[in-house]
Every structure is written in C-alpha cells, then in structure tokens.
C-alpha cells in the first residue's frame, strides 16, 4: 500500500492542492485585500470636503474637522491590515472523514487582535468570531473526496472603526493529512466464492463460524469452544480432544475501480457502497485502483481501509484482479 502523501503536492483529484474538500473547483472566494465600507465613503467625503472648504475659506475649525475625518479614514484602513498581518493560524484536523461529514477542525490563532472572524474555505464555511490569541474548534464540511495536507483559512476584521474589511486568505498545512473517503451509495453485498484460500483463512468471520467438514482432531487448547469437544476421542485418549474443521469457502468480490470517465465521484461512491455492504455481510473485498499513477490492488480488511483506498484513487488504469476471483468493475 502506498504511503499517504500530503496531497497539496500534486494537483490531481484525490490529491488536491486547494485544501480540504474543494468540491467547487474554480468557485470564486474572496481573495482581494479587503472591502471599503459605507463608513469609509462617508469619512473620505467629509475629510476631502473639510480640508478643501477650510483651506479655501480659512476656517481652521473646518480644516480640523476634515483632518479628523481623514485621520479616522486612514486609521480605519491601516489598523485592520496591520492587525491581520500579525496573526498566524495552526489547524489540526482528524485523519479520516467521509464526504459530507462535518469535520471539527482544531484552530489555534496566535498574535494579538481584539476582534477577528475566521472561516475555512473550499467550500467557504461559516464565519466564526474570536479574539486572538485563541484556540477553538471550527466545524467544516468535508465536501470532496481526497487526501488533503492543507486547508485554506480566511481571516477578516474591520476593527476598530468598520472603515475597511481586511480579508486575508492563508493556506495552513495540517499536522497530519486528512483522508476524505467517498460517501458510499446504497448497494447490495456481492458474495461469490473466492478461490484463494489465503484470503479465506484471513477472513475472521468465516474462521469463527467454521466449515462443515472435520479435518482432524487435536488436543484441547485453552479458548476452544466446548461445542467442538469430540467426546469419543476424549474418552479414548483420556484427555480432552476437539474437532478441527476445514475452513469454509471464502465469499467476496474483487472491485476494480476505474475512474477514467465523466463521473469519477459517483463511481468511487458506488465502489464504496458495494465494498462496505460486502464487508458488512462478512465477505472479503479486494480493491484494485490507480493511486498516484500506480496500479494498486489488495484486500481491505474494513470499511475505513476501503475508504482510504478510494480516497487516494485517481483516474488511471486500475490493478488487475486476482485470477478466478469474482470481479465487479466499477467505472466512471
């Protein structure tokens, strides 16, 4: 299994460099330095009129009023810019999520600011108010499948005068990348006999329930269930002996996920749905994908592992399934 890679390195689906859950690629978000408000227009007008009229008529008080308005205008612009520039943000996200989940991001804002609003982007979330320094939790929707090593965060403030709303967008590297699995669609389990004994013996549920054919009788070992005691042999040998069954035939499916098509997300969701249903029914699942340009194929032991595999999947030729396995090809 390939190692998880911080996905801001390669701009591909499933390895997005735009941050957590950027489902709406190209959706415009506020990137500019900020917005002037009605207050700024009023102050600038008063300042210009006051200075001009005062200079023309020689009325110092009028000039003073104009200078006062201009000063408020200037402070109202400079203060938020300086305030935001001094802030730094750290974000810690959970390692696993599913598309559509609300992820709780641990936010730490350092620096000093009396008032600042913060939100996560991709997609733009709700603004949350705090002062800095502060640490808190910010909910954010994981909107897109992939492995994300960073998240885009936006800070804004208009403090203290509301003259200028300074907005700053920053990309924050996550301590550990978050893997966003596709949301499984509702699907039926696919349980066909699997010829690979190695896989079958690895399936714990089948091993616990046991098969129908007794393969041998062996001495009792602690932990063996009482229903397996073979009483005739035990009486004959003078020690407790238990039956040992042949492993049952494995059931399951090999899912080949081919995302080279117009609807890769739907395909990934379908693969997740089939795999999750099969695993829930006790079957074994082999998953063949293309991850980071490499063909990857292996069994998965649980739904989380399947989700991680599918999260890393990208369009490309998937791995070929094992020989004689029942195959379910899911293509976009």
């Amino acid at each position, binding site marked *: 299994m390939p190692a998880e890679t911080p996905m801001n390195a390669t701009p591909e689906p499933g390895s997005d460099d735009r941050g957590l859950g950027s489902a709406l690629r190209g959706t415009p978000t506020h990137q500019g330095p900020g917005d002037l408000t009605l207050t700024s227009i009023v102050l600038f007008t008063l300042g210009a009129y006051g200075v001009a009229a005062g200079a023309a008529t*020689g009325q*110092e008080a009028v000039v003073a009023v104009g200078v006062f308005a201009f*000063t408020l205008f200037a402070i109202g612009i400079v203060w938020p810019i300086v305030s935001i520039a001094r802030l730094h943000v750290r974000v810690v996200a959970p390692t696993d999520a599913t598309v559509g989940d609300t992820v709780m991001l641990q936010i730490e804002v350092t620096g000093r600011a009396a008032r600042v609003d913060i939100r996560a982007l991709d997609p733009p979330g709700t603004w949350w*108010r705090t*002062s800095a320094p502060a640490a*808190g939790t910010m909910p954010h929707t994981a909107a897109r499948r992939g492995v994300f090593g960073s998240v885009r965060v936006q800070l804004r403030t208009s403090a203290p005068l509301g003259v200028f709303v300074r907005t700053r967008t920053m990309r924050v590297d996550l301590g550990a990348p978050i893997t966003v699995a596709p949301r499984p669609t509702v699907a039926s389990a696919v349980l066909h006999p699997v010829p690979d004994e190695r896989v079958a013996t690895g399936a714990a549920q089948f091993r616990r329930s046991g098969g129908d054919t007794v393969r041998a009788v062996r001495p009792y070992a602690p932990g063996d269930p009482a229903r397996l005691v073979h009483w005739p042999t035990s009486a004959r040998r003078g020690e407790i002996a238990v039956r040992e069954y042949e492993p049952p035939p494995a059931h399951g499916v090999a899912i080949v996920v081919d995302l080279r098509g117009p609807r890769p997300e739907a395909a990934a969701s379908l693969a997740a749905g089939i795999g999750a249903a099969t695993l829930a029914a006790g079957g074994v699942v082999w998953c063949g994908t293309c991850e980071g340009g490499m063909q990857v194929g292996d069994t998965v032991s649980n739904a989380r592992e399947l989700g991680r595999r599918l999260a890393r999947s990208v369009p490309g030729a998937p791995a070929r399934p094992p020989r004689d396995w029942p195959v379910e090809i899911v293509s976009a």
Partner: protein
Amino acid sequence: MSERQPLREAARPPSRGVASSYRIVAVPAAVALGAVGAIAAEHANVPWVVGAFGGALAAVLGVLALPSIPTRRATIVLLGLGGLAALRHASYAGSDRSWLLVIWAAATMVTLVVVDRADAETVPALEGGAPLPSRVTETARVGALISLVVIVAAVALVPTVTARLGRHVWPGLTPNDNDLASSPSSLKSSSTLDLTSRPRLSDAVVFTVDASRPDFWRGETFDRYNGTSWSSSSNPDYQPLPSDGTRVLVDPPPYDVGAHTGQDFRQTFHMQAGYSDVVFAAPSPRVVETDKLLWQADDGTLRVAGAGSDPDHFPNSGAGFGKGAVYTVTSRSLPVTEQQLREATGPVPVAIAGQYAQIPISTTPRVVALAREITRGRTNTYDEVKALENWLGDNTRYSLNAPTSPRDVDVVDDFLFRTRLGWCEQIASSLVVMARSVGVPARLVTGFVPGSRDALTGRFVVRERDAHAWAEIYFPGIGWQGFDPTASVPLAGDVKSSGSWLTDARHNAVPLAVLAVLIVITIAALPEVMAAGRRRRARRTSWSAQALHRLERAGRKSGRARTPSETPREYAEVLARRLGDDRLVEVGATLDVALYSARGAPDEARERADAVLTSL
C-alpha cells in the same frame, strides 16, 4: 398543562427590530449629534440646549426607531449628516463651542467603534475561542490611540495640508453684493455714526484674532459731533499707502508719540464675516501685511481701498476683506502707568487742540456745567477723565433696550439729564463731550472689544455683539490713550429684574415652543412604549420562552451566543460541551418537548431544567 409556542416567536429578539447589541450605539450617537446640534443652534441664535436635545433625539430615533433599515447603515448615515453639520457650523466655534466640536469628534469615534463591535457580535463565537474584550476596554484603548494620532495629525498636518494656515496673509473670498448687504454696519467704513439708531448685534463671529494679549480692536475714529451723530473731519481725505503687494507701511499720525516710540504688538486677523473694508487693529498700526491696497485718514484710520483703485497692481483689492481673508498688523503703543498719565501735563499741540478739544456746537451749557462740576479740583487730565468716567459709572445704566433719543435734542444732554440709560455709543459720547467741555482733547472710537479666547486655538473670537465704542484721550508726550466708560457702567439688568416671567417667557418663545412639542410627543409616545414593554414581557411569560431566554443568557455570558439557525436542543448541546455540563443536554430536550409536543414537557422535567438553569 400543554404548552405550544412557535420557536420563532419564542426566539424573537425582544425589541422591535433592533438587536440588543446595537442599542448601546444610540448613546454615543446621541452625544455626537447633540453636540453638533448645540453648535448649529447657537449659530442660528437658538438656545444651544434646544439644538442639543433635537440632535440627540434625532440620533436615538434614527438608531432605534428604524427597524427596516440596518442599524449600522442608519448610524453611519446619521454620523455623516452630523459631520456635514459640523463642517457647516465649525467656523462658529468659540471658546465653548470648540469643546462641543471635541465632544462631537470623540462621540463620533466611539459610535464607530461601538457599531462595528455590535456588527462583530452578530457573528457566532468560535467554539472554545477567546471572548471579545469588553466594550469599555476596547473603546478606551482604541479611543486613546486614535486621539493621540488625531492630535499628532492635527498639529503636524493641518498647516501643511491647508497651506494657508499659519500664514499671515491670505486673500480670502471675493465679497459679492450679498456679502456686502449682509455685513453688519460695524464692519463697513462710514463717514458718520448715528446715535439715534439702535445697532444690530447678533452672535455671529465676525473675525478671530491671533494675538499674545487682548486689546481693543480699533476701527474708526470720529471727532465731529453735531448733537445726534458723529463724523470724521478726515473723511473723505483718505490717502493711499505705499505697498509692495504683501506689506503696507503706515505713516503714524503726527503727535501720536506711542506710535513712534512704543512697543510692537503683532496681531493676525482672520475674517469670518463676508465683508469688511475697515482695517481693525490695536492702536496704533504701523505695518499691515495684506495683499490689499489700503487708504489712511490723517487721524490714523485705515480702510481697504475702494474698487478700481489700482487693479493692475492689486487685483485682490477694491472689494474689502472677504470671508477667509487674513491680514496681520504690527501696532506700536507706549505702555504707560497711571502715574505717567497724571504727570503728562505738557502743552497740547495746537493741531490736536484745534481738532479734538473744541466743545461741539450742540453741547448744552448744562452739560458743560456738569463736566466742570465733576472735574472740579482735579489738577491733571488723567484725574479729570477718571472723575468723569466714575460719575458715568455711578449715575448711568447700560442697556441696549434704552429708548432712542428724539431727533431734535442733543443725545448727550438727553442721556445725561433725562434717561441716563443707554449703550456704549451714548456713554462714550458723553465722556468725549464732557472731556472736551473741560478742555481735554478727546475723540470717539468704534471697533470691537477683544472677544472671548478660544480654549483650543488660543484665538480671540470676536462676534458682532462685541462691537463697541469708547473714548480716546490725548496726553501730551504720550499720545492717544483709550478709556472705556462703559466698563464702569453697570448693566441695567444688574439693578433689578427686567420684567415678569411672562416677559422672560416671551423672550424664549421659540425654545419653549420646541420643548413643549417634544414633551407632547414624548407623552403621546409613552403608552406605545409601555405597551411594547408589556408585549415583550408577555412573550416571556410561557415557561419555554423563559427557559430559552435563561439558556441564551447563560450562553452569552460564556461567550457563545445562539445563532439564528440553532434549535434550542442543538444550542443546549453546544453549551453542554462548552461548559462541561451534560445536564444541559436534557434541558435542550425538555425545551424541544415543551415547544413542539402537544402535551408539553412533564412538570418533573421542567423542574430539573429550572434547577440546571438556576445553577448556571
């Protein structure tokens, strides 16, 4: 008992549209508009309290009573209007008005901070984030810093930005016909001064003066008296003074010793009135820095040259000083003591005696007799003048409402022997005429008293009502010295009340009427205000509304207000995590049941929820 109440109604803000965080905005906004309203009212000759109250009321109504307009927008528009009013009336700032401007500025700044803070509070708090600093802390910190920057900017930038500030000469606006017509007579040069008409004296600022000390700002002098008016024998014999375009050298009148050997005193005049062709200055001007061409009479009176006097060299001249004009005068006078004046007993120059010591033809014998009687036994000019001054102070009263004298009688005689009630012109005329009656050279001077000193700018603010007339007495070897007999005369109102309460009420009819209207509006609005309070309380009478209100209050105290989209259950769960109190989850569930279930919440559940909410 079942209780079903729509959540939206239960969660509605208690006011009719204005969120609680915005209500505090009304306070600084009211102060800002009240301050600027007070300045505007004074400018309009209305008592300042009326303007202050009107401005404050407008601010409160604008912020609180316009729920259909976002509070922030309404507030900013109000502040903008206040700023325009401040610009319009700022020039009217006097010693007290400039502090009103400071109050306006401070309140405007606080309003901006508070309204932006209120805006910020509408954003939900970050879970676990740091609460905002208190309003007072934030406002004080921001206010201190901004005040510092504003002061530095005002000191450093104002002269630079405006260029003209700090200069001693500036042409100002060119006066038009309107300015000429509306300018008070005290600012226009005139050949006569009629004592039988009452002067117009409003509170309008006519000019401000940068000077190191107060002085009487002398305009014109008069030496001829005909019983009802004064005139100048110099007029129209004005002579143009040499000028290089920015500086006019004044030739001092002969025998004005102080103008030759005295100490210099520099004053800069900033015209606020629309027109003036009189060059006001402390006596006696020697240099005038101005771009205008000036004329001088032989008694030393200065005026701006008439239109068309020399347009090639003085394009800005010919129309008098307009609004914004600045000129600087360097005067020279001899500082003297009472003793020096008493010892000034030398011979009076013939020219001075011939022009200024003649008894006016209209003077009645009894005026002369009275003057001689008052000065009997005095051995020097100074004591004689002081005796006359003291007599006027003891026996006459000052009143601008004094009856005017008939045309066919001598005004001084009428004033001294019949009414003994008059204003500065009658009082000063009496001193001049009585001084001449005992052979002392004297003349009447018109101009302005120093005015009030602006606490911020340090300038003397001179208003129309500061127009004044006083006497100048000639002392041999010293020159002309001013005497103000009016200062010795008590005000007529000091003796007894001028009238009944009805008279007082009539004088204040406009403010009283405004006050009455405001009282009627307040009384009329009171039932509606009380009804709104009752409705607000009624909304909280149900258990669910009360409990939700208590939950929201506890949440706000912890720094996490409820967002509009949160149901009570969700909000309670958030608070449970935030406060580490799992019991709040049950409170939220109970609230949901109480709000939406047909049966309502069980009594036991309510009691448990109440206990939890009480313990928060």
